[in-house]
């Protein structure tokens, strides 16, 4: 649905993004991660045609954004980091304007506005002036504007930035519903948000892609990590665990309860059988054993530090 081929954007000698190449399939939700200044917003601005790349091509639904901007942009809905809102307009007028920009047939606009307002929770706000709305509702109006014309691709730049926790939760819920049947690309530096909403992650660092994987593959690539809670003596247990075949590392965590040792086991292969045998021999009962995946935050910090 979206193809980035060798996209580079330079400002003088400095490159904001360098040689970005990736595709986003129809129906996929892609999270663009990166520290401040990593090039996320530049990449999204190029994806939506707001900026032109110094080199490379972008296609949306098979249409080259530079050669066929009208066709490509009809497929796009964009919510920038600061929602582009005209404060003097009412919500209804703002949505009408967006519908007209997206070339929605005039007769369909009133019904379309009601539908979008319903989906974004703005039905009661249609008559209010945008300038009088709270930040949460302004964000919703921005999202509603992006939805005008029922675009196949939604591009969102840090959509929950500046919202309070309740607004963030509500907004994420709305996004989750809207993502059904759409291609969604959004940038964020809130890793839990990406983890909750995306099926795939691209991590940018200094304008370059340092990671492009599905979330599942990314976490699996970290190897098997188990968290175990064992009743027994820590001084006897830890050295014994380190002798287990297939266990690369043992990390002691704060004790779960008095007399209950909590450990992380980094394994090359599933160690359950050997673990049970060992603990039986030590007369230390296993109280809990569960898979502990590396958090995206850990992966992100490592990749951006290495980059």
């Amino acid at each position, binding site marked *: 649905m979206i193809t980035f081929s060798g996209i580079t954007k330079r*400002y003088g000698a400095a490159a904001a993004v360098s040689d970005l190449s990736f595709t986003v399939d129809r129906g996929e939700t892609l999270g663009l991660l990166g520290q401040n200044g990593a090039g996320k917003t530049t990449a999204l*601005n190029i994806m*939506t*045609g*707001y*900026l*032109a790349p*110094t080199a490379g091509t972008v296609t949306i639904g098979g249409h080259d954004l530079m050669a066929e*901007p*009208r*066709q490509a*942009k*009809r497929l*796009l809905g*964009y919510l*920038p980091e*600061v929602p*582009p*809102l*005209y*404060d*003097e*307009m009412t919500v209804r*007028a703002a949505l009408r*304007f*967006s519908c*007209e*920009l*997206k*070339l929605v047939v005039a007769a369909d606009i009133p019904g379309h506005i009601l539908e979008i307002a319903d989906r974004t929770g703005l039905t009661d706000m249609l008559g209010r002036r945008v300038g009088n709305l709270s930040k949460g509702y302004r964000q919703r109006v921005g999202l509603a*504007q992006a939805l005008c014309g029922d675009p196949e691709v939604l591009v969102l730049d840090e959509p929950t930035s500046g919202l309070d926790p309740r607004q963030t939760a509500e907004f994420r819920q709305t996004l989750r519903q809207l993502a059904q049947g759409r291609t969604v690309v959004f940038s964020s530096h809130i890793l839990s948000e990406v983890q909750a909403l995306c099926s795939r992650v691209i991590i940018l660092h200094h304008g370059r892609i340092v990671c492009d994987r599905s979330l599942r593959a990314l976490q699996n690539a970290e190897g098997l990590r188990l968290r175990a809670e064992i009743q027994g003596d820590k001084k006897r247990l830890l050295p014994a665990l380190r002798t287990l075949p297939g266990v690369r590392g043992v990390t002691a965590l704060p004790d779960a309860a008095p007399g209950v040792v909590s450990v992380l086991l980094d394994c090359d292969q599933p160690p359950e059988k050997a673990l049970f045998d060992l603990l039986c021999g030590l007369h230390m009962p296993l109280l809990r054993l569960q898979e502990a995946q590396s958090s995206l935050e850990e992966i992100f910090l490592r990749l951006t530090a290495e980059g």
Partner: protein
Amino acid sequence: MLAIYKREIQSYFFTASAYVFMGVFLALGSVFYAVGNLAAQSSDLLGLLWNMGYLWMLLTPILTMHTYAGERKSRTDQLLFTSPVSLTGIVAGKFLAGVTVLLGAVALSGVYVLVTALYGRVYPGEVLCGYLGFLLQGCAFLAIDQLISARCRAPVTAAVWSLGVNLALWLLDVLNSAVSLTLVNRILSALSLYMRAAPFQEGQLSLANILYFVAVIVLMQFFTVRTLDARRWSA
């Protein structure tokens, strides 16, 4: 383009821009009319239009300061430039909206013609010719100032630059009268937005001067499109 035009019109009238523009235009125009026509008991409307021509340089920055610079500052330009509307459509829509407000102000100044017609003699052809030049001159200033707005990041900066450029254009005339070099005089006269409007205010309908104003407007619109496009590459 129609969507842009409608929104611009709404913007002019939902904010103070159009009202300030029309209010000051009519207030100053009325002073000219009171002094030049009522007090002098003169029905010379062409002289009034000539004097009112100087209002454009002072007032068009009010209309144009937000046109692009305001959009850029509030980042609403992202909505426009990521929509399927072409840059030409955006520029044309915004210009036509400005012209509409200009026409509204010019139409309101028709009250001077009505009052004069009640108490004196008005020559319709002559007045229409004067109004055509007056309007073309206003549209040229509007197009120049919109180009300046497209080059600025903040509305106040756009207004100050527009006023400065408008005054510089007026100073060309002052320079022209101060210099006595034939070639320089010819060039300055050819470029002057005031000298080009003068024949209209003498009742002369000149195709060359109409084409001159149309060319200035089209050229400024073209440069505005190029400026906005260049920003995508360099911003």
